[in-house]
């Protein structure tokens, strides 16, 4: 969304290159001083690139590839300036002219760099804020001082409980457990992601604290696996590659 709604529609037209006249002048002037709208313009250009995808058609002919490769083989690159016969009398002028060109080049570059730095700073501030928020969430979830309360029907003795939160597309998993019974020596709990197809995938080895609470945060997982259920078994402390029966806890997605 645009930070300045009065320019929102015109930014879209500018991204398409169809804005003209005073409206274009006005929005371009605004963009000089507004990083948020510059960012939105870049996004809108990205949206037009998505529209380009819908133009799918026949592949270009093979001759186009040959034509391009031939052209670039013959093309002198910008940095390979062809040598010329030198003349001593014009050397000082050439040197002066080159200096001017170089100065002009660096001036333009520095201007671009300044704009880019400004954009990166904006982004970085935003990322920082997101990161802070994420840190707070994780530290609350994992804090040893946290008061963990599981609400259950009245008059039910505390039951072992686990909650797995899994985002498939990011392979991101957070698991929180409470009221877990203590373990025999040299044993640990192991969490398993059981995919819709295929063998159970180890998703972290953990031991509960004195109160029976435990967490597993972002265990290494393969990308994009659809989870059917999660399960917990008791394994040797170092963990196992395949689960040892019996399954002590299990649950499927809601």
């Amino acid at each position, binding site marked *: 969304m645009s930070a300045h709604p009065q320019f929102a529609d015109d930014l879209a037209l500018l991204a398409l290159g169809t804005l003209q006249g005073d409206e274009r002048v006005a929005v371009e002037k605004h963009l000089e001083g507004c990083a948020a709208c510059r960012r939105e313009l870049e*996004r809108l250009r990205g949206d037009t*690139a998505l529209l380009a995808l819908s133009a799918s058609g026949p*592949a*270009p002919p093979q001759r186009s*590839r040959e034509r391009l490769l031939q*052209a*670039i*083989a013959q093309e002198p690159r910008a940095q390979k300036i062809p040598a010329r016969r030198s003349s001593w009398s014009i050397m000082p002028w050439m040197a002066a002219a080159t200096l001017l060109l170089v100065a002009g080049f660096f001036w333009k570059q520095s201007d671009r760099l300044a704009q880019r730095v400004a954009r990166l700073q904006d982004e970085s501030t935003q990322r920082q804020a997101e990161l802070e928020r994420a840190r707070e969430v994780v530290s609350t979830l994992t804090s040893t001082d946290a008061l963990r309360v599981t609400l259950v029907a009245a008059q039910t003795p505390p039951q072992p409980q686990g909650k797995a939160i899994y985002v498939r*597309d990011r392979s991101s998993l957070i698991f929180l457990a409470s009221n877990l019974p203590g373990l025999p020596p040299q044993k640990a709990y192991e969490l398993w992601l059981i995919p819709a197809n295929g063998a159970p995938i180890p998703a972290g080895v953990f031991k509960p604290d004195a109160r029976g609470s435990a967490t597993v945060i972002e265990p290494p997982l393969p990308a994009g696996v659809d989870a059917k259920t999660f399960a917990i078994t008791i394994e040797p402390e170092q963990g196992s590659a395949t689960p040892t029966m019996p399954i002590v806890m299990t649950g499927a997605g809601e």
Partner: protein
Amino acid sequence: MSETSLVWAIRSGDESAMATLYDRYSGLVYAVALRVLGETGAAEDVLQEVFLQLWRNPAAFDSSRGNLGAWLAVIARNRAIDGLRKRRPETDIADVVVSVEPDLAGEAERSRALEKVRAELNAMPAPQRKALEMAYFEGLTHVEIAAKSGEPLGTIKTRIRTGLQALRQAFEV
């Protein structure tokens, strides 16, 4: 090879890196040019010109800011529209910064993205899709689209913007 390494290889004059990028993106660039220009010869010229520009000035693409495929698609469409409307290119390609969510580097990613774009376009009200396509593939201004469709300028503008943003939202899950 990653996109960033390919662009760096091009900067150092590596012709085989250019061939790799051509194989990856020529289909996309050609398709958009052909859709705009409707003629294979002219579309081939745009294809040639877009890749030659990348070869001549690889620094124009800022690889720290996303996606070469999207950038090439934008440059190609702009060049094709310039050709269609018989005008000289106005913008410096180095000023074109494109930010887009989906990765378009692989065949599979592109066809997944295409599915989503198609679904989103099909779900749009027909006048909105039409306005978007006239602006994008025909390079018509909102004034020209309003004159053709007999609808108010403001309506056309908003349709175009919300149409573009709807495509973006299809990738924000």
